[in-house]
């Protein structure tokens, strides 16, 4: 099972919106709604930001939103802030295994 495909880096200015894509196949991203997103600051533990494609855990800012179309899931960060600078990973359940697979990771830079 190969990692899901994410852009290596995405950047934006404070206040702007950015979108990170996560492309898989019909066996993972496209096969169900079990896609989640994790934020990892340097030297820190990953933090759950979105689950089941669109849901935010309690305490996560509503500037973070998720969506999916076909085999591609997306994470959008609106009103970009300096604290959003981190690595972001998508994660999908694999119905055929059953198991999970992470995306390759995206470094978000706030200009």
């Amino acid at each position: 099972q190969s990692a899901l495909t994410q852009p290596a880096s995405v950047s934006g200015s404070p206040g702007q919106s950015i979108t990170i894509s996560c492309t898989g196949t019909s066996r993972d991203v496209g096969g169900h709604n079990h896609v989640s997103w994790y934020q990892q600051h340097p030297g820190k533990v990953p933090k759950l930001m979105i689950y089941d494609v669109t849901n935010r855990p309690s305490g996560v800012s509503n500037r973070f939103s998720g969506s999916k179309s076909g085999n591609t899931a997306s994470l959008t960060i609106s009103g970009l802030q300096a604290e959003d600078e981190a690595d972001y990973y998508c994660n999908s359940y694999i119905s055929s295994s059953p198991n999970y697979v992470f995306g390759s990771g995206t470094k978000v830079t706030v200009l």
Partner: protein
Amino acid sequence: EVQLVQPGVEVKKPGESLKISCKVSGYSLTSYWIGWVRQMPGKGLEWMGIIHFADSDTRYSPSFRGQGTISADKSIFTAHLQWNSLKASDTALYYCAGAVAGTSWFDAWGQGTLVTVSS
């Protein structure tokens, strides 16, 4: 609130064995999954496998079969990841992460165990 506690650092020589732990508190373990995630220096997150505490149902990611053994001991609320013969390429940060059975997201994470294998 679920808490996952891992030892911070382990230093071993090539060929040595190692068993690292992930102690769980704050949730009924009869319906809980623990996953092990590897992060090599400067690299991304990779699933090694997951285990269900209730019945020790274990599922390994294809890339990691034979590269470590996942187990769980319900009596001490602890999951383990072990190697019989470490290699330098096993040097990495290993996280455990928890998910309630029936959900697909891992909302509890340990602090990670840094395993260094060097002669």
